[in-house]
């Protein structure tokens, strides 16, 4: 072989003891800091995959000979954290827009839950991703990514603006800061754990 893989020396294989894997989604709109967040907590250099999806064109006349669909390439960044000797956690940066729904099927299935990143300068953009998660039954927590220069608001005001359920955890992070990102993930997984534990 050899020729098949020129980059093998850079490949970060999972530890030999790891036999199981789970995933969490880091969801949010373009530019909200998903890739930065994943990079801050991942033990490997974040990787990117691209999938071509067919999306229904919106607001475009259905011209003769066209089928009203367009091809879009959706990039997805992801990282990995080995959380125990036998379990690897994968974090997938997930684009929030509804038009990427074909991707969501794949991502949401089997996901433990999602951390939704929001930007206070574009809070209205979060509605779509929150709605998609609710529709799919993916449990989530929300984290405000505190961008430099963006106004700070009390979390209670943000909770109200986003119309979040009182039980939905809401925290703030600096996506560049590993400690705050890890803390947000812990908040999410604690929520997922208690939610499941209290289920009859």
């Amino acid at each position, binding site marked *: 072989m050899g020729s098949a893989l020129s980059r093998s020396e850079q*490949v970060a294989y999972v530890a030999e003891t790891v036999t*199981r894997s789970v995933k969490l989604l880091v969801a949010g709109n373009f530019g909200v800091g998903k890739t930065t967040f994943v990079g801050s907590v991942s033990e490997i250099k974040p990787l990117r995959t691209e999938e071509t999806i067919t999306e229904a064109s919106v607001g475009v006349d259905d011209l003769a000979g066209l089928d009203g669909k367009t091809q879009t390439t959706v990039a997805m960044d992801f990282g990995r954290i080995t959380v125990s000797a036998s379990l690897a956690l994968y974090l997938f940066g997930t684009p929030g827009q509804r038009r990427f729904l074909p991707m969501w099927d794949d991502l949401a299935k089997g996901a433990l839950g999602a951390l939704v990143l929001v930007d206070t300068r574009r809070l209205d953009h979060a509605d779509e991703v929150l709605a998609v998660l609710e529709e799919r039954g993916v449990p989530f927590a929300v984290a405000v990514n505190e961008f430099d220069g963006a106004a700070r608001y009390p979390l209670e005001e943000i909770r109200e603006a986003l119309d979040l359920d009182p039980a939905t955890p809401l925290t703030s992070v600096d996506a560049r800061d590993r400690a705050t990102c890890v803390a947000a993930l812990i908040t999410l997984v604690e929520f997922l754990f208690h939610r499941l534990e209290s289920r009859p």
Partner: protein
Amino acid sequence: MSGPRRDPDLVRAYVRTGGRSRATRDLDLVTLVVAAKNPPKSNVTPQTMPPDARRVMGLCGRHGALSVAEIAAYLDLPPSVVKIVVSDLMDGGHADSPAPAETVPELSMLEEVLHGLRALAV
């Protein structure tokens, strides 16, 4: 009105995978893949496999396990194509999961994740 058209995604996958448009197995983006310890003795060897299968075997060959998503990223292939190729390799006995699937309750899984994350926070 437009007539029924082939989904170009499926056409692409079909061409790349020698006639398959859907994976034979229900693989996830995070399904872990390794080369089988005891591949079948047959005419099919990594050298005679289709190019994408050969590349997947080259990557997973003897080094260790990777998830479907990682294989896709390293080989610049769409995850949908990797799923089909890996399914075929598993069906043929060339690729495998690192361990027999054990069902761990989601609650213990979450607890395990939580312990791991808390250890990172220290």
